[in-house]
């Protein structure tokens, strides 16, 4: 079983990394969908099938569609030079932070005793225990939609900018 897990981790890492590395945005979005699917699988294995389904549909489905839309409107752009942040510095900082975080996270060697949790269905958890979160989600979605349409509403035709290749 451990081998399977390790394979999933490795695949997730590769997908995520490819999503960052890919030159074309569309490819990047597809790698992201792959990452999402693998994370969903992981979540499923951990024992949260409902979230796995939502992650699969929203993370791998909806978000990918959104990306494709956005890329369609905004167009592809590829760059010949890397970002101005030195690559080794980026690597160093990320590795350092991850190692430090890992040091803190993994310092515990045994799994904690699970507290005797009341038996609760997901329905009860969402709609009775944490219904405030759900209410707030509605407000969040309202703000998000308002913001997005506010940003996108254009009453004049889109200005034509040639999709230039930046160097």
């Amino acid at each position: 079983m451990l081998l399977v897990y390790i394979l999933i981790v490795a695949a997730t890492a590769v997908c995520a990394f490819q999503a960052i590395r890919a030159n074309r945005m569309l490819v990047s979005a597809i790698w992201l969908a792959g990452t999402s699917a693998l994370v969903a699988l992981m979540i499923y294995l951990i024992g949260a099938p409902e979230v796995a389904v939502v992650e699969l549909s929203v993370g791998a489905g909806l978000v990918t569609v959104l990306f494709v839309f956005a890329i369609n409107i905004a167009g592809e752009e590829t760059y010949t030079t890397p970002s101005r942040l030195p690559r080794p510095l980026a690597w160093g900082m990320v590795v350092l932070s991850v190692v430090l975080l890992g040091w803190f996270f993994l310092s515990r060697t045994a799994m904690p005793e699970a507290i005797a949790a009341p038996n609760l269905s997901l329905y009860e958890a969402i709609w009775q225990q944490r219904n405030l979160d759900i209410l707030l989600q509605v407000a969040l979605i309202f703000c998000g939609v308002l913001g997005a349409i506010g940003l996108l509403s254009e009453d004049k035709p889109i200005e034509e900018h040639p999709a230039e290749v930046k160097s």
Partner: protein
Amino acid sequence: MQNWLWMIGLPIVAAPIIYVVGRTFRPGDGTKAGINPAMWVALLSLLATGFFTYQAWTAYIADATLETSIGMVALRADGISFLMATAILVLGSMATLYSGPYLAADEGQEKFYALLTAMIGMMIGLSCARDLFNLWIWFEGMAIASFPLVAFYRRNPAGLEAGIKYLVQSAAGSILVLVAIALVYSETGSLAYDGIVAASGRSLPMLAAGALFIVGFGVKVAMVPLHTWLPDAHSQAPSPISAMLSGVVIEAGLIALIRSLGVLQSVSNNWGVILLGFGALNMLVGNLLALRQTQVKRLLAFSSLAHIGYILLGIGVAASSYYFDDLNTGFFAGSGSFFHILTHALMKGLAFLAAGCLLYSLYISRGSHEPLTKNDLAGAARRYPLEAFGLSVAVLALGGLPPLAGFMSKWQIFVGSFMSGNPWIIGLVIFAAFNSVLSLGYYAPLVNLMYRHEPGEVVLAGKPTPWLMILPVCLLALAVVVLGFWPSLVQPLTDVAGFSLLQLFGFVR
């Protein structure tokens, strides 16, 4: 629904109504011209919220416990909540009133007011949250409402650039917060504040959670070096939003930070020390960065960094009360910090609104989104006496000249911190005092410029400012002066807030 919850719920419920009203009764042909009636609805809802807050406050000081559990998520109004609600509602209604004429020529006003009101509700909710994950949602809601507001001028490249920078950094910070919450939950099995406090002990994962909280919320608080989004967002947002961001939004982030650190009280004694370190950094870097700025709003944005530094000084001392003999130190320093949050909201709000008046008259009313530079202010007092006076009062108060409100609150922080008797903290107080002096190095030239005899070309070409924009400026200026002469006017608020801070960190029951 319990009555007091209206002080949180009303603005959020009002937001869609505001949108619908604004959409239905748009003035003109639906695109441009005129104040959208949504503004009045928003203002009305804020005043009503103020009324509910006042009612809750009277109940609170009559010893009622304002706590409501919705499922397993509890909301509770304590001193900090009331202080924040006051600052948010005062500045929020001023900003709303001000936005009327300021945005009269822009499209999408109804969305603006709806989002602004929702953001206000989110912030008040944030200050009442008693559940770590719930806190994050309020925080995220505040952020989501503020992103489009920052990029409100959606055809202005600079505004968009500021908006996306703000968004990316905020989102990165909020992910860190989420990881921290997960860590805390995995260690303690609880999300409610009291449950976590009861179940937590010293462990490395909990320490990591603290670090993640500090860095994650620190992005929103604009602690140096996490501040890089702030000058862009604050200078490019519409002026009323700049006022809100600088005056209350970053402080709301700070409230979220101290709430989450308070929950980790038994994990480490040194959260306060870390805050003190950031405070010192913020003061120095904020002031030095502002020193050579030429754009007025950017300068004010950097001065916010310095002021967050002063606030962190007091809060850091309060959170370090483990090290002091008596709790008075922490109480004084903490309530001083809350006082400074209040006065900073007024002063910085005033500064941004007054600068916004000039920006509006000199550029926006002529359809330009150029930044307002220092040199544009030359001789502004001749044509815009009230605006220039308001801005002068604001910057002098920010620079800590007595007897304006800014000094009074700084002094209270200094007294409290000095009381600790700790040489490091005393050194920090003196450092803060010198920083105040340094800040005059960029505030004073602004005042001089405005009172030049010969107005510059930009000023001569400017248009008059609508009175509806001058009114909030005058009211805030009055508040800054009055609070300077009569600081104990808000003492009940700051006292309970200081007490709640000590409660939060478990020093008092």
